[in-house]
């Protein structure tokens, strides 16, 4: 008989759940949460595709350069070397998707105006979107963590100065800021690498604010006081105690922010300031297809759906994570 083992309130308080803490409890909640689980499925799917495109030896991993040849195309007969640019004049530029009357399974989603297989390009587009999303968010996270932790921990004029700077960056709408940054810093020839840095800078404020408020709440806790009294260096206090404690809310935010990043970078590429042709990027593909909007409708449809699904995956997972970590609303 387990009398006295548990202090769970029941009877009068059936709404409140057992207070669980720690990573294991969080993971268990995520597993239980349908939203988070579906998010995880979608993310895994997109990441698997990205991973595949990265292993494919013919693709330059760093420059997101032209996709010239595909291992997958060799492996799967239906793709008849789709991504090779056909010789001039021979390009069958208007192959519609397979479900179309004139379509064929050789190009399940048809071809783009250059005669490149659209399905392959969509698949490879995952690489740019996902890596840009992850890299830029990570950059913002690191930058924001440094700024927020320093501002929150030292307070005083350091805090004032950094927070004014953060407010300034925050006041310029991200898309505008990123475009201005990308175009000017690249000297008029924007590129996806500048876009990553731009997005990273634009996201410093949001992360800095979260970290700062976490730091402010953690700073006053007894064990931090104790560590300081014991002569632990400030830098070590921040790294060992303050930042790990702020981890949970930041992770939720970062996950949701990946979606926002992908959304913004898609817009950036769509305007021509992000990934440049011939890089297979969903935003870039939407830009190219914009001129063919009326004649080849499908060109505009698939990249959008791909973006939507990818972002949805991160949003679902972020939501689930939030539910798992936030005890305020329970079902």
């Amino acid at each position: 008989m387990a009398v006295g083992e548990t202090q769970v309130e029941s009877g009068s308080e059936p709404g409140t759940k057992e207070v669980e803490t720690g990573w294991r409890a969080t993971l268990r909640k995520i597993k239980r949460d349908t939203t988070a689980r579906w998010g995880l499925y979608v993310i895994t799917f997109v990441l698997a595709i990205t991973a595949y495109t990265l292993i494919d030896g013919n693709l330059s991993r760093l420059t997101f350069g032209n996709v010239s040849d595909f291992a997958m195309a060799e492996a799967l007969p239906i793709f008849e070397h789709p991504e090779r640019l056909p010789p001039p004049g021979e390009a069958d530029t208007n192959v519609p998707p397979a479900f179309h009357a004139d379509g064929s399974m050789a190009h399940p989603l048809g071809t783009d105006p250059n005669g490149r297989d659209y399905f392959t390009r969509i698949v490879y587009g995952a690489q740019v979107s996902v890596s840009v999303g992850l890299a830029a968010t990570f950059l913002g996270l690191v930058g924001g963590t440094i700024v927020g932790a320093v501002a929150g921990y030292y307070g005083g004029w350091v805090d004032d100065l950094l927070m004014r700077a953060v407010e300034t960056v925050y006041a310029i709408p991200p898309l505008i800021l990123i475009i201005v940054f990308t175009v000017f810093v690249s000297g008029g020839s924007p590129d996806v690498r500048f876009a990553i840095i731009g997005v990273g800078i634009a996201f410093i404020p949001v992360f800095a604010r979260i970290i700062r408020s976490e730091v402010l709440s953690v700073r006053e806790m007894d064990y931090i006081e104790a560590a300081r009294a014991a002569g632990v260096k400030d830098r070590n206090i921040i790294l060992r105690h303050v930042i790990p404690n702020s981890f949970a809310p930041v992770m939720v935010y970062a996950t949701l922010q990946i979606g926002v990043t992908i959304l913004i970078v898609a817009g950036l590429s769509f305007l021509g300031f992000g990934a440049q042709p011939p890089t297979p990027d969903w935003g870039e593909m939407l830009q190219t297809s914009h001129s063919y909007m009326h004649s080849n409708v499908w060109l505009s449809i698939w990249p959008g759906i791909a973006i939507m699904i990818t972002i949805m995956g991160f949003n679902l997972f972020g939501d689930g994570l939030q539910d798992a970590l936030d005890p305020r609303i329970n079902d």
Partner: protein
Amino acid sequence: MSSESEPLLRVENLKTQFFTEAGTVRAVDGISFDVHEGEIVGLVGESGAGKSVASMSLLRLVESPGEIVGGEITYKGETIFGLEEGPDGELQEREDMLSNQEMRDRIRGNEIAVIFQDPMESLNPVFTVGGQLREFIELNRDLSSEQARQEAVEMLREVGIPDPEQRYDEYPHQFSGGMRQRVLIAMALACEPSLIIADEPTTALDVTVEGQIIDLVDDLQEKYGTSFIWVTHDMGVVAEICDRVNVMYLGEIVEQSPVDELFYDTKHPYTEALLDSIPRPDKTVGELDPIEGVMPEAISPPSGCRFHPRCPDAREVCQRVHPENKQVDTAEGVPHRAACVKHDAFDVGYDESVPLAKSPQVTADSSANTETSVTDPERGTAGSSGGEGSE
């Protein structure tokens, strides 16, 4: 206060259960009590005993996934809750049971009002105190907006809020905890109900304010003649204010008697334990004797008597026999009931039964509890370390 007249409120065998993923929680498991006109009836027990659920059941305001599943609640001859067997053999709500509409229009507020535990959260932060008061008065009494306002100001004065005219237009955050609780009392009284359910109204307040509020309620109760159901875990408050007491443990009433009888002729070991755990003038803090262990979960109550794992008088028979709340004595013509087999009214062989050995686990836990109680003796907690404040 005579028991012969028809009571204002009669609760019979009330059962309220919560259907959670983990299983059915029998929060209120067949309790019966009544409230007569002009009486203050206590509902006492540790956190999780089901006191609050029981009181919300009286208004039919149990929140999902909770549900009243059985019993009967009669108020002034009207059926607030009652079941009968339908033509298909299933239980169904009785024909004469008040509809939701009737409960809202005629019972809640105008007949039965409540005072909640947490005065900080109970008032809406974005409306003025006076506005909220006026709204409820207007809704529950046939008064015009202007009259309701007058009444609201009057009530604020009555509960001892200085400058009521001016404070009428202030917001809850501008009031202290004690003042907010006075507002809630004003709210309850202003609707002129016959019964007020006070759900731990002083738990969130500090001791001096608690005393003031209890005095205030005592005075106003005499003046208005309103009946009260006073839900609390604090035996000290019970002694000060209640006429009759119902002691609840794990969804059941284990002892029921007039207040003096309860204190001077305690019949249930749980009540005794509750009394031993509060400070009294004739005892020093060192003599305080907290109840051993923590109340088990209502989802899987112990067999037999639900208190037996923590009971100092427990014998083998207590594990087997589940005692009902029986009359064991009479005091001033009022029955004194207790649900404990050690009394002669139960003939189940308690005297011959072997005392139960305490498991080491319980002992270990009790030491932890001693600590909590001693550090916080004036709150008169019943020795449970499970958060009292969260109810």
